[in-house]
C-alpha cells in the first residue's frame, strides 16, 4: 500500500507541529521561546510547501517575510523588556575570513539580488548587506534608509493600482513592483545589520 505523498507530508508536518508545540509548553525561558517560534514558522511553511503549485510558492514568499519581520519586532521587544540596552562587547578576536570575504561576498550577493528583484532578490541582497555591516561594524543613517523604504512601499502600492485599474500598462507595473519590493525588503532587512552595534548616527 502506497501512502500518497501529500498525506505523508501532512502527517509529518502535523507530528512536527505537535512535537514543537510540546517543547513550547515545557519551555519557561523567554529567549528559548523566541527560538522555538522560529521552529514553528518552519513547520507552517512545510504545510504550504506541500501544496506544490505555483500558487503555493507565491504564498510562501509572504509567509517568510511575515515570519522574519515579526521575529524582528518581538526580539526588539524582548531586548527592551529585559533592559539589554548595552551593546555587546566586541569579539575577542576575529577570524581572517571576516576581513577579506565581506566585500566580495556582499558584492556578489547584492548584485545577484538586484538581478533577481522582487522578494527573492530583496532577501538575497539583504543577506549580502547584513553580512557586510556585520563584519565592518557600520553605523548607517537610519532615517535615510527608512525613508527610502517608505518611498519604495509607496511605489509598490502605485504598481498595485496599475495592475488593478490600468491593466494595459502591466509591463510598467511589473518593473515598478519588482524594483520597489526589492528596494523595500532589502532596505528593511539590511537595517538589521546596522542595528547590532546599538549606535545610531
Amino acid at each position, binding site marked *: 500500500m502506497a501512502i500518497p505523498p501529500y498525506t505523508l507530508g501532512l502527517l509529518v508536518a502535523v507530528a512536527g507541529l505537535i512535537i514543537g508545540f510540546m517543547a513550547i509548553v515545557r519551555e519557561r525561558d523567554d529567549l528559548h521561546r523566541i527560538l522555538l517560534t522560529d521552529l514553528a514558522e518552519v513547520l507552517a511553511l512545510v504545510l504550504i510547501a506541500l*501544496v506544490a503549485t505555483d500558487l503555493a510558492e507565491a504564498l510562501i514568499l509572504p509567509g517568510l517575510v511575515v515570519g522574519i519581520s515579526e521575529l524582528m519586532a518581538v526580539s526588539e521587544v524582548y531586548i527592551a523588556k529585559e533592559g539589554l540596552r548595552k551593546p555587546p562587547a566586541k569579539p575577542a578576536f576575529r577570524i581572517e575570513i571576516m576581513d577579506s570575504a565581506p566585500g566580495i561576498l556582499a558584492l556578489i550577493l547584492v548584485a545577484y539580488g538586484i538581478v533577481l528583484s522582487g522578494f527573492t532578490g530583496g532577501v538575497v541582497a539583504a543577506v549580502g548587506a547584513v553580512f557586510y555591516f556585520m563584519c565592518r561594524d557600520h553605523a548607517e543613517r537610519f532615517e535615510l534608509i527608512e525613508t527610502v523604504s517608505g518611498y519604495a512601499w509607496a511605489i509598490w502600492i502605485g504598481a498595485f493600482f496599475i495592475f488593478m485599474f490600468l491593466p494595459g500598462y502591466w509591463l510598467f507595473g511589473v518593473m515598478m513592483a519588482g524594483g520597489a519590493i526589492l528596494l523595500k525588503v532589502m532596505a528593511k532587512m539590511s537595517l538589521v545589520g546596522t542595528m547590532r552595534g546599538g549606535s545610531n548616527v
Partner: protein
Amino acid sequence: MFNLPTENIGGQELFVLEFGDIVNYFSPYTAALFAFALIFTALAIVSRPERQVDIAFGGDAYYAKEVDVDLLRFQRFMAIACGLATLGAMVSGDVFNFTLFASLVGITNIGIVAAYKNKHVLNAAFQYGIVAMLATVPLFGGAAIILASTGTLSMWELFADGVVVPIIAKAFLVIGVMGEGMAPFYVAKAEITRAQGAPFILMVHVSSLLLFLRVIEIVISM
C-alpha cells in the same frame, strides 16, 4: 456576476470589490462589522488619550500623568494601521488574504502596546507577541490545508454546498485568530489594558473582537 452562496448566514451580498483573484464582499454582516471598525478607527484618529490619575496611597494626594507626544504619535500610527487591517479583514473574500490581515492586526497590536516603558506592560506585550507569532502557524497552516484539499482559497467557492473543508483546517483558523486577537486568552490583555492611551488600547480590543466575529462567519459558512 457572483452570488454569495450563504445568504442565510451573513445575508445577501451588497457590494463586491474585485482585486484579481481576491474578491472582497460586503454582506449586511460584514458591512456592519466594517462600519463599526470604521467608527473606532475614526475615534482613534480624532481623540486624544486620557491622562491617567494615580492615587498616592496613605494620603489625599493624586496626580495625573502627562501625555508623551512622541509616544502618542507612534501609538496613533499603530492604531490607525490596526484599524485599516481590521477593515481589510472584515471584508476579505479570500482565506489567505484574511489570514494575512489577521497577522497584520496581531503585529500592530504588539506595536500599540510595546511602546510603553512600563516593565509589566512590556512583559505582557512580549508574551502576547510570542503568541501572535505562534498563531501565524495555524493560520497559514489552515489556509494551506484548505488550498490543498479543495483547490481554492476564494470564499466564494468554499462557501458553496459541494465543497468539503477539512475540520482540522477550520479549527486551525479559529485557533489562529484567537491567538492573533487574544480573544479568550485574556491574561495578557488585562495587563495591556493598564497602559495609558485609551483610544489606542481600545483598538486592540476592537480588532480582536471583530476578527473573532468574522472568523466565526467564515468557519460556519464553509
